[in-house]
Structures are given as C-alpha cells and as structure tokens.
C-alpha cells in the first residue's frame, strides 16, 4: 500500500510538473507572438524609410553620411552576439551556470559594443548638423535605426538582470524559461538588423 501511495504521489508530482512546463511553453509561444507583432512596427518604419529615402532636402544622402567599414563592424558585433547568445542558451539547457554566465557576459559586451558604436555614429552625425530635423531622410533614418537601438537597450538591461538572477538562484525552471525568451528576443533583433544593414546601409551606398 505504501508503495502504491508513493507511486501515485510521484505520478501526481510529475503530472503537475508537466502542467507547469506546458504553461511555460504557452508563455514562450505568447512571447513569440509578441515578437511577430513587433515585426509590424519595424515593417511600418521600413516602409517610411524607403519612401523618404531620397527626400534629403539639400542635406547629406546616405552614401555621403555612412562609413561602410564602421557599419560592417557594428554588424559583426551584433551577429557574433547573436551566436554567443545561442551558446548561452545551450549552456543553460545543460544547467551549466558558469558557462551560461560566461556566454551571457560575452553577449552583453558585444551588444554594448554595438550600441556604443551606433550611439557614437548618431552623435557624430548630430554634431555635424545632420540630426533628425535636417531632412525627411534623416528623420526616417533615426526613427528606424533608433527604434532598433531602443530594443537593443532593453535587451541589454534584461540580460543584466537575468545574469544577476542566475548568479543568485542558479538555473531553475523559471529562469530557463526567461533565458529562452531573452534569447528569442536577441536573435530577433539580429534578424531585424539584417534588413537595416541591407536596406539602409548597403542600398544607401548604392544610391551614390
């Protein structure tokens, strides 16, 4: 009888766990739906940018403004951070706390590098008098690239908080779920950057 009771208790326990995990998977899917609706925001900004691309109002064009090696450096930093972010998730799935923190730290540093490069670029343009008030093209440019930068900033804050949480509590069911969401968010931002790189910078350079 004792055995039967223990067995049914453990079955009940594992059923409860499965239920919890299924809730987690619903949360992850919900987050995916959020990311996909975020696409609509970026799509609108991309459409605005393409429409206003040539409205420079006597100001600089993209080709005159952008330094291509600089942009390539930014792109490499973000692409590599997307990769190390994937490695962080893999380590987290293996419950390796130190490894997870290492890869997350590297992702954070690369993400911060990307953000600093972008802000330095914005600062340089604005100081030369090419701020968002200069022309329709620059308004659209700052809005599109700035919205992506704002997402990156939030991602970095989230990553810092997560790293602290893992450091304090280790990798639990809840923290793994959050790492998964964060990882999706970060990869998504890199996917958006592919199109910013191509449409804003590469197409911009071709318009010279």
């Amino acid at each position, binding site marked *: 009888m004792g055995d039967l009771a223990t067995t049914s208790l453990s079955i009940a326990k*594992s059923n409860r766990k499965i239920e919890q995990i299924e809730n987690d*998977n619903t949360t992850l899917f919900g987050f995916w739906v959020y990311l*996909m609706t975020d696409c609509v925001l970026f799509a609108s900004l991309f*459409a605005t940018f393409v429409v206003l691309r040539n409205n420079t109002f006597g100001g600089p064009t993209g080709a005159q403004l952008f330094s291509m090696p600089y942009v390539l450096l930014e792109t490499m930093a973000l692409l590599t951070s997307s990769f190390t972010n994937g490695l962080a998730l893999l380590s987290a799935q293996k*419950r390796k706390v130190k490894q997870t923190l290492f890869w997350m730290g590297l992702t954070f540093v690369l993400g911060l590098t990307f953000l600093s490069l972008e802000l330095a670029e914005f600062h340089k343009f604005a100081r030369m008098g090419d701020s968002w008030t200069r022309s329709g093209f620059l308004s659209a440019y700052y809005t599109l690239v700035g919205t992506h930068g704002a997402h990156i900033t939030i991602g970095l804050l989230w990553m810092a908080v997560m790293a602290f949480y893992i450091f304090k509590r280790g*990798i639990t069911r809840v923290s793994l779920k959050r790492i998964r969401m964060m990882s999706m968010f970060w990869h*998504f931002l890199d996917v958006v950057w592919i199109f910013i790189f191509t449409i804003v910078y590469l197409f911009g350079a071709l318009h010279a």
Partner: protein
Amino acid sequence: MSKKHPNHHKYHLSGNEPQDSEALVEVQEERPVLLKHYIIGFISSLILTLVAYIITINHVADRNILFIILALLALGQFLLQMFYFLHVGREFSPKFKLLMASFMSLVVIILVGGSLWIMFNLNGRVMPTQSQMVKYMNSQNSL
C-alpha cells in the same frame, strides 16, 4: 519527420539530479537544439554578410542587378537565422510558431509592398496634368 528521433518522447523528463529541489523537467516542443545548428547559422550568416558587403563596396555589377542580389542575400540570411537561431519550423506539429511567422511575413509583405506601391504612384495619381493645371490657373485668374 519523427523517424529521425525514434526514441524521442514528447514528455521527456530529464535532469533529476539529487541536488535539484525543483527537479528540472523538460517538455520538449521542438527537436533538440544542437551546437552544430548555431555554428552553421553563424558561419553562413557571416559569409552572406561579407559577400553582400564586398559586392556593394566594389560595385561588381549594374546597380539594379546589385539591388536584386542584395535583396536575395538578405532573404537567405533571414531564412537561415530563422531556422538555425530561432528554430522556426523545428517544432513538432502543430507548428504554431511557423504558422505565426508565415502569417506575419504575409502581413509585412502587404504592409510594406502596399505602402510603397501607393507612395511611389502618388505623384502620378494626385498631380494634375499640364493642361489640367493651366485650366485651373485660368479659372483662378478670372476671379
């Protein structure tokens, strides 16, 4: 599809290490993610980015041809990253994640394509022709 992982159970209990009070259980909705996938995704993205960069800097072809090539390279990198980094399409049926992504692609195509179609035709649709303009100006003068 599931033939590849015959010993895979949808409810896969793992990681019951004794020190885990919260016993980590995993219910997998996706095929297991491997290091290999991230490496393939990273290297192929790296190559596509560099190719796009180099052909742009060196203006290897006519501008209009380059636009098409760059768009295709971006699309390729997008699909690679969706598959290898975001694991879209690697889940078990029903593939809601893939469904959501496909529907969103449709929305984005309609939104961007539609906006551009309208905006680039706007001048032609709204601007009056020369003769219409002259007629209008004459009518204003007669006031």
